[in-house]
């Protein structure tokens, strides 16, 4: 039997970074194949290559026996390959019908045949159990419904292969079940599905076969019934890389932050933990587990519905970020360019932004001399590479940008430093630097909350590790903890694993 789609020795790189190094696998008709791997393993690159968003530098895509090169997603779609991306590629202002038929509208003598399209859209939506008027504009739909529109779009163009890229990360449990049913139906209709998910139990339940990627290479390809989830995890994580993580032992002091049954409805519930001076407390979990939301509530950006916070011995109810900062609690955001920096200002202005108030002269002027002097001190502390001080931060590398954000917060002499994915998208050298700074800060007595989706990193850097899943704490573990235990708690295979004292 001829496979629907085959990948032969696909290579791809962004600049000097090789994202794919010779990946080959094939997909048979009516098969559901799981594609798993850690962040950065190359899953998204595969999706983009299959759908023609980007082109491989080497290797072939073979669709039903013919070699193909797709220069844009529409070409891939016409060849029967459609994808539901993590960020839906829909037109929010336009109707469901128009989104379904975007790029291949039905026409009658050159004019668009609306009634015919609406009717076909209605039929498609009914097949997907979505009884919504196809003239509804897409912005009125919720996420799960938008996904179904994407699927309807794929079906309308006669998709042979449907790629689902992390579809369940943004869905509630009930919606996931509904999607699962649809996947079964599509399979029964001989549609091939490539399913990408961080939730391994879903991969286990949904797929016939699993392909595991690590560092741009295929490390395993197995029939799902022949593997166990621990096998998959071992394949995904691979080797240990503890040298990269310069954790120094730190003396733990008094409790600096105590959080009791904190709740923000719909985001996280009943979260309790304590943080001591000098401690690095890791937060692990899948995307959407509620870790960022928790951090934002602690920092006064988001609401708190219930629960208590005790900061350095006093009850603390953050009213706003400036309130939190003045109480010694700061937050390094996940997206440094949008929330962490003013991209068009120079290093000194960014690095001292948090303390401008204190630097004002008696005339209310900000003296450049004070700013520059403070910047020099901070730059040394965060190991900012020497060079022209007056550079615009958007021109810096990701690692140096992150160091500037760190400097901004160090200027406030925080008691508690919350780091949200501090090493995300940063090259290996700068990453080690940032982790070393974090370690030094802990030694200096700062309590650190360290949110990260990189398993090795949190495991190796943290004194204790809090694992969250769907807004709840599912386990608190002492160092050292093996990644299997963490994955288990994060994906919810067993409900609560108590390993800590």
């Amino acid at each position: 039997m001829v496979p629907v789609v085959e990948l032969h020795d696909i290579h791809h790189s962004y600049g000097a970074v090789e994202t794919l190094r010779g990946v080959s696998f094939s997909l048979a008709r009516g098969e559901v194949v799981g594609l798993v791997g850690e962040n950065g393993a190359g899953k998204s690159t595969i999706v983009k290559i299959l759908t023609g968003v980007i082109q491989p530098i080497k290797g072939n895509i073979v669709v039903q026996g013919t070699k193909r090169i797709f220069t844009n997603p529409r070409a891939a779609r016409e060849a029967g390959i459609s994808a539901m991306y993590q960020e839906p590629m829909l037109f929010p202002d336009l109707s469901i019908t128009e989104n379904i038929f975007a790029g291949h509208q039905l026409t009658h003598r050159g004019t668009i045949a609306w009634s015919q399209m609406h009717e076909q859209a209605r039929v498609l939506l009914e097949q997907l159990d979505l009884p919504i008027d196809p003239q509804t504009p897409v912005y009125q739909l919720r996420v799960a419904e938008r996904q179904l529109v994407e699927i309807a779009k794929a079906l309308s163009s006669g998709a042979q292969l449907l790629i689902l890229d992390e579809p369940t990360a943004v869905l509630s449990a009930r919606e996931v079940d509904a999607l699962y049913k649809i996947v079964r139906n599509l399979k029964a209709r001989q549609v091939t599905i490539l399913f990408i998910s961080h939730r391994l139990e879903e991969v286990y339940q949904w797929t016939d076969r699993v392909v595991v990627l690590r560092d741009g290479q295929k490390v395993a390809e197995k029939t799902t019934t022949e593997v166990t989830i621990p096998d998959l995890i071992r394949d995904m994580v691979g080797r240990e890389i503890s040298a990269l993580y310069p954790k120094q032992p730190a003396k733990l002091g008094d409790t600096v932050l105590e959080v009791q049954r904190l709740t923000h409805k719909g985001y996280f519930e009943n979260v309790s933990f304590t943080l001591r001076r000098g401690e690095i407390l890791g937060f692990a979990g899948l995307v959407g587990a509620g870790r960022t939301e928790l951090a934002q509530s602690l920092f006064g950006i988001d609401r708190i519905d219930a629960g208590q916070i005790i900061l350095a011995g006093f009850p603390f109810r953050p009213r706003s970020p400036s309130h939190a900062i003045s109480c010694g609690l700061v937050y390094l955001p996940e997206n440094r360019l949008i929330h962490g920096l003013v991209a068009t200002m120079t290093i000194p202005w960014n690095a001292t932004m948090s303390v401008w108030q204190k630097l004002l002269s008696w005339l209310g002027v900000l003296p450049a001399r004070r700013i520059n002097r403070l910047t020099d001190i901070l730059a040394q502390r965060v190991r900012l590479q020497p060079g022209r001080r007056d550079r615009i931060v958007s021109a810096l590398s990701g690692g140096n940008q992150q160091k500037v954000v760190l400097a901004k917060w160090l200027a406030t002499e925080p008691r508690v430093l919350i780091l949200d994915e501090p090493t995300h998208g940063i090259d290996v050298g700068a990453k080690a630097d940032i982790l070393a700074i974090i370690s030094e800060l802990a030694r200096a007595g700062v309590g650190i909350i360290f949110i990260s989706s990189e398993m090795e990193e949190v495991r190796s850097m943290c004194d204790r590790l809090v694992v969250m899943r769907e807004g709840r704490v599912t386990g608190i573990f002492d160092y050292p903890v093996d990644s299997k235990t963490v994955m288990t708690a994060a994906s919810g295979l067993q409900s609560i694993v108590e390993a800590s004292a």
Partner: protein
Amino acid sequence: MNARSVTPGISERGRFGLARLFRIREVGLIAIVVIVSIVAAICIPAFRNGVNLREMLNNAAVVAIVALGESLVLLSRQIDLSVGTILGLAAFITGSLLGQLSGLGGVGIVLIAILLPVFIGVVLGLVNGLLISFARMPAIIATLATLSIYGGLQVVVSGGSQVYAYQVPTWLSQLYTTTWLGIGSFVWIGAVWVILFSFVMRTLRWGRDLYAMGSNPEAARYMAIPTRRRTIEAFVVCGALAGFGGLLYIAQYGNVDATAGAGFELTAIAAAVVGGVSLFGGSGSPLGAALGSVLLLEIENVLALLKISIFAQQTLQGVAIICAVALYAVLMRRLQQPASRNRSQSDNDTPQVVKTEVQQ
């Protein structure tokens, strides 16, 4: 179309039936135009006067034609600030040429009178489009520059002179006061354009491409829509309509000088936005832009009839625009309530909302 039975849960009944009528955004706008008209007609006798109504609607038609072109550009998430000077330049060149050819007559002159301003608009619009598509300039900067350039050209070309009403052929100067079936000629002309472009934007791929580009530029590229080409085309059509507006301007005022059309771009943009065309692209319609023009000119007319000082008039006009847009927004929210409820529910339902939406 009949409403089908709906399973509760995923969908809501409100999406069918009455809501459908009000999903047509123009319904609210028509309601406001009608309300303002009725109130004005009752309170101000002069408003009911036939000549006043005809002139007001004629003026609105000129604005509507330019706003129509502008709305095509706005729908594709661009903006054209140069339409005022395109109108002025087209009007001046056409006006002076017609003055010089006044000895001639016949169909040839009529054709020149119609085609020349449109051609000038096409050329100037093409310059805008090329600057934006190929020089990759942001539309607001590029057209701000061409606004200045075209305005300067107008001064240079005029050399301080102006076109006088007596130079304009009589058939053109009489057009303003001509009525067909009791309705001003400009209104008919405007209606033809609105109907034509309603058709184009609704039922031709070309129009839908503009909507798609405005709604989600990245997805439009994914769909292999030729976005550069469409952008140029939108600016060309916008320029052409502004040029045609220049012809009507000659007929309307007779005198054309170096400042003709100055500030018209803001009127056109205001009309389009009041008419529900989103400055962020993707939503709105030609009919909406036309209705916005009518509403705008109606407000201006009422304020003028109330004999309010010209200075206060401008301020009050701005206030009236804000009130009209606010009223419209409230009205639409009321009517679309089922939809908005559905939206907030979805926020609670899914623990993780896409955070990067602000990025764009």
